[in-house]
């Protein structure tokens, strides 16, 4: 019985992958030195690294908060709604989830740069501009996931709330409350997409030190300059932030269930 359950192929593939990674690490001395340097930088709490990290969290947090304002109500309306063209609307948002960040970054650059039609908003090379851009980027994702979460709630919940005395709006809130686990996943996932993107941060923020430099733009720049240790340190921090959000989501979901 044990033998039949034993699956050799995935195991062999895992071994090969681990072996490949070890070979790369050993052969690329740069990488090895980089890791060592990165650990030193992180442990010593380098002020510049700290600043860039906090700014990343702040900008993408703002982007997520902004996106929540319009995406969650929109998702709720689409999820609860029963209108002609609902599938079409859903389809559009689903398709837009995968929008390339550089494409959106370029569009926003053309709109927001000082010579662009929206240049007067003064969002170009401005942390708020990056946040707005990221908010636009994650909007389709948040709407789609919220819609799905709302649709997954028992359809009778709305009727239940109403018969217990809720108005349309109060009933919609009852449904939203029931869909909290799914909506929180939408929010957390969107934050991760925002903090990990590069295109918008680069094109709208222009990676200005002390103003719009965030983790992703800093990694790209430092790698280009050959500062591998710094790049690795920043990348590790980015990974830790993204993974922590993932773990947090998991914990939250378990609490809510």
């Amino acid at each position, binding site marked *: 019985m044990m033998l039949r359950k034993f699956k050799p192929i995935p195991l062999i593939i895992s071994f090969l992958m681990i072996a490949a990674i070890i070979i790369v690490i050993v052969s690329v001395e740069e990488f090895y030195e980089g890791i060592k340097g990165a650990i030193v930088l992180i442990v010593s709490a380098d002020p510049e690294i700290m600043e860039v990290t906090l700014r990343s969290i702040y900008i993408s947090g703002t982007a997520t908060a902004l996106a929540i304002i319009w995406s969650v109500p929109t998702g709720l309306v689409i999820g609860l709604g029963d209108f002609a063209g609902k599938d079409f609307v859903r389809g559009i948002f689903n398709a837009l989830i995968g929008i390339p960040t550089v494409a959106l970054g370029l569009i926003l650059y053309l709109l927001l740069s000082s010579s662009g039609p929206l240049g007067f908003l003064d969002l170009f090379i401005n942390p708020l501009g990056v946040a707005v851009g990221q908010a636009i980027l994650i909007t389709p994702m948040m709407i789609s996931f919220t819609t799905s979460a709302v649709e997954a709630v028992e359809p009778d*919940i709305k009727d*239940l709330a109403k*018969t*217990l*005395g809720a108005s*349309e709006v109060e009933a919609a809130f*009852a449904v939203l409350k*029931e869909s909290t686990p799914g909506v929180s996943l939408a929010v957390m996932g969107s934050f991760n997409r925002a903090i990990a993107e590069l295109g918008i941060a680069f094109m709208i923020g222009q990676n200005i030190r002390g103003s719009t430099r965030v983790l992703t733009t800093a990694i790209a720049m430092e790698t280009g300059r050959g500062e591998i240790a710094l790049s690795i340190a920043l990348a590790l921090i980015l990974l830790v932030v993204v993974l922590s959000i993932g773990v947090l989501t998991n914990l939250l979901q378990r609490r*809510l269930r």
Partner: protein
Amino acid sequence: MNMIELDNVTKTYGEITALDGVSLKIPRGELLTLIGPNGSGKTTLLKILACIEKPTRGKVYIDNDLVKERSVTKLRLKGTMVFQKTVLFNATTYENIAYGLKLRGFLKEQINERVRNALKLVKLEGYEKRPAKKLSGGEQQRVSLARALTLRTELLLLDEPIANLDQRSASIIEAAISRIERETSTTVVLATHNLFQVKALSEKVALINNGRLIQVGKAHEILGDSRKLADFARIENIFPGVSHITKHGTSLIDIGDNVQIEASIRKSGKISVFVRPEDIILSKIKIASSARNVFEGKIVEISDLGPTVRLGIDAGKQFVVQITKRSFVEMQLNLSSKVFVTFKASSVETID
């Protein structure tokens, strides 16, 4: 004074007509039992009375007020509905019961008091902090009833409140409903396909089929022709046949297709008998017991009712058997599984 007046109400869902020109008056304080088979329009009618669904055509008056777009939220507060399929918020029992009270702006102490009383009424004292969705099926339905009763609305709408429940929960719910009916002036509309509930609870009965109201009247007037009603209310496992009395004093009823049912009654000639689905024991092997009726068959129908599962068994004649979901899973039953149905001669009842 009518609590409810329906004037030629029709409800369609696309091609399907759920209600077809229903006119009905229900005086204040009355209990009306709505009987009809599944899919006859009972639930739709109740949802319209609850102001959850809008009629496609026709007028609905609640407490002599015409239900309009503008007044619907206000009129909705006059009644509340308990759904057939238990729906609970993903929260504690307390939160579930308090929801409607909070919407109505009660103070915290009043809410605590009412929740406590409501739980007492359905015999779930001290269940406040339990997550409602973790309760058993019967307990969940009792929470839904408590949640509705605690609002003390003038109108109470109950959709098959005890269908597919365990015996204890069913009797607790019946007692609570009887008490509300006896001690308050609440107008109650109760939908059921179970004929026996009518005899136990009701004063006035309305028969509904295919979205049309067939007959409205006092229970004893309509229940007179019980064969028609039995057919109507779809009591399961009804078998017309020819009975002859055996030398042991029981009756053997030939219901055709080589199936004979033994019953502990003494009657001969043409007769209609039935066996309640919950009185039938289902087993994978033939069990030795005192039960007189054992038939081998195979499963031809499975319908999931939440806590219980309803099975159609072809044993020459088709039997409907109801078992708990847990038994269903543990017995690893599937369509066309070979099974035995067993029931006692004393479980066989006559219709007339």
